């Protein structure tokens, strides 16, 4: 419960009257102080009981259209909420889609108990709605409460993995946009550079002067709409990890910078090989920084020291050159691993995040030194999606990165 400026003013006047009453031994001033204190407590009690009444009578009916729901596709959510009307109490309701979903918070606010908004589910599997955010206010107090009963969460949505060929042409990364089956590259104003034409490139981007000069097609690489702000990946460190504070501090500074300069930030929070949260074009700085305070889950799935395929290929070539039996056996094992083509779940998730984002650079903040498997998988996904990768880690951990993929640029904090 928070006090409005009027309530704060009443309390201030009461305190001033109390001091005057005590100093001058004036009962007239004490009368005013007691009256105002009684007014504040009376209004506080009335406010909380009214809020409880509104919350108890809240009925929610939510419908998710376009079933079945596929990963990355836009679905419409219709919501209807009814509650008792209390005169003098302002009530504001906002629907809370699943944590991983992309939506416009402004659209999710209900008007006269009705709401309709677009939402995109960014992670496959079961996605429960978080309930409703109930805000009540009167002249003296305000309160915001999460209303997350079973009836408010409603029917659970199951998000299916994306199917090939179901994407339709479209642009943008908002809640109502259509997912493209390729790396996003929104049209910006400036040109960052040129590169040779690749299959799938937009022909409108071909720079004909440069193509004629070199005898082969070249395309313009445009600045993204977000001004080339990198995708921030934070690997949540265990609290006792050396350099954890430095990593979190550096990640916080980067998020603040992006919010300040671009008004938004795309953040992926992981803990080892687990994806904790993914926020795209998020504007809520406090919400993003709060994610960095989460404790990493205790039961992490071990990935048994996954190596980057590039490293394995190099080892395979080296082993094949050797004539000794152990080296030959190692070569057979490496060929089997490389030929299996099985991608871990985490790599697939990282890949999906990179497909959904348009950032050309990925910056990973990590203090992980024991196992770099997840970093290698991110590097593999970044290389596949042609993103620049930078890994920032504490200065003390630089020596322990011997098994790290050679692809990313490693920077010490």
């Amino acid at each position, binding site marked *: 419960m928070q006090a409005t400026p009027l309530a704060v*003013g009443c309390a201030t006047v009461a305190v001033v009257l109390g001091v005057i009453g*005590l100093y001058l031994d004036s009962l*007239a001033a004490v009368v005013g102080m007691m*009256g105002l204190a009684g007014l504040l407590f009376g209004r506080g009690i009335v406010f*909380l009981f009214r809020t409880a009444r509104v919350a108890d009578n809240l009925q929610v009916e939510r419908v998710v259209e376009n079933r079945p729901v596929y990963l990355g596709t836009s679905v419409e959510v219709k919501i209807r909420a009814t509650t008792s009307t209390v*005169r003098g109490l302002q009530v504001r309701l906002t629907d809370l889609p699943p944590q991983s979903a992309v939506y416009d918070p402004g659209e999710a606010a209900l008007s006269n108990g009705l709401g309709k908004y677009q939402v995109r589910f960014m992670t496959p599997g079961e996605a429960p709605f978080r309930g409703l955010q109930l805000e009540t206010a009167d002249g003296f107090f305000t309160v915001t409460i999460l*209303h997350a009963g079973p*009836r408010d969460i409603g029917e659970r949505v199951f998000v299916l993995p994306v199917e090939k060929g179901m994407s339709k042409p479209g642009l943008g990364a908002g809640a109502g946009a259509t997912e493209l089956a390729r790396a996003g590259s929104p049209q910006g104003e400036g040109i960052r550079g040129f590169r040779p034409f690749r299959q799938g490139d937009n022909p409108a981007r071909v720079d004909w002067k440069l193509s004629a000069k070199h005898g082969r097609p070249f395309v313009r690489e445009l600045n993204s709409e977000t001004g080339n702000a990198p995708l921030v990946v934070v690997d949540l460190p265990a609290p006792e990890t050396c350099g954890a504070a430095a990593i979190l501090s550096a990640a916080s500074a980067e998020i603040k910078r992006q919010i300040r300069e671009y008004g938004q930030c795309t953040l992926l929070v992981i803990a080892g090989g687990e994806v904790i949260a993914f926020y795209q074009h998020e504007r809520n700085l406090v919400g993003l920084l709060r994610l960095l305070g989460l404790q990493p889950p205790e039961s992490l799935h071990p990935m048994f020291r996954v190596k980057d395929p590039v490293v394995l290929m190099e080892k395979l070539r080296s082993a094949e050159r050797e004539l000794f039996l152990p080296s030959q056996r190692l070569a057979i094992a490496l060929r089997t691993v490389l030929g299996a083509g099985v991608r871990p779940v985490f790599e697939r998730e990282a890949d999906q995040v990179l497909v959904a984002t348009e950032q050309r650079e990925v910056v990973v903040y990590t203090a992980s030194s024991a196992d770099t498997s997840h970093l290698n998988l991110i590097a593999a996904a970044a290389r596949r999606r042609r993103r620049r990768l930078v890994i920032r880690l504490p200065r003390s951990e630089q020596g322990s990165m011997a098994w790290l993929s050679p692809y990313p640029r490693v920077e010490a904090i």
Partner: protein
Amino acid sequence: MERRSVVFLSALVVVAVGALLVPEKEPGVDVLVVLLGAGVAATALTGYGGQFLLLCLGETFAVALGTASLPLGVLFQPVIAGMLCGDDWMSLTVGGAATLMAAAVVLVFPRTLFLLLVLLLVSAGMTIGLTGFEAWMRHRLSAGSAA
């Protein structure tokens, strides 16, 4: 003119006249009551300064009334509460009653230090009670047992 303003101004005039009629007052209290009463009335009528100025001037006027006669100062407290509260009867009734009862305690125990200590203890108790109720409500709603 709104009905609420008419009631407020009528109450103001009644208590001001009552204060002027009280015998054996300190010198200058009559002038204070008249000047502050005019100021409060002007603020309420014009709306200048908003509720904050009305609150401050109203309480100063109540102190002047209380200096003339303590029961008059107590009686004016619900009038101030009525101007600060909204239009709904529940807020007006509870706010006015709570204000009147709290102020009337002074008439029963007319000792400044004692009253301040009592208010301190009551404030602590009420704050703990309200915070506890709010926390219980949050827990109940987030746990889903509200239904």
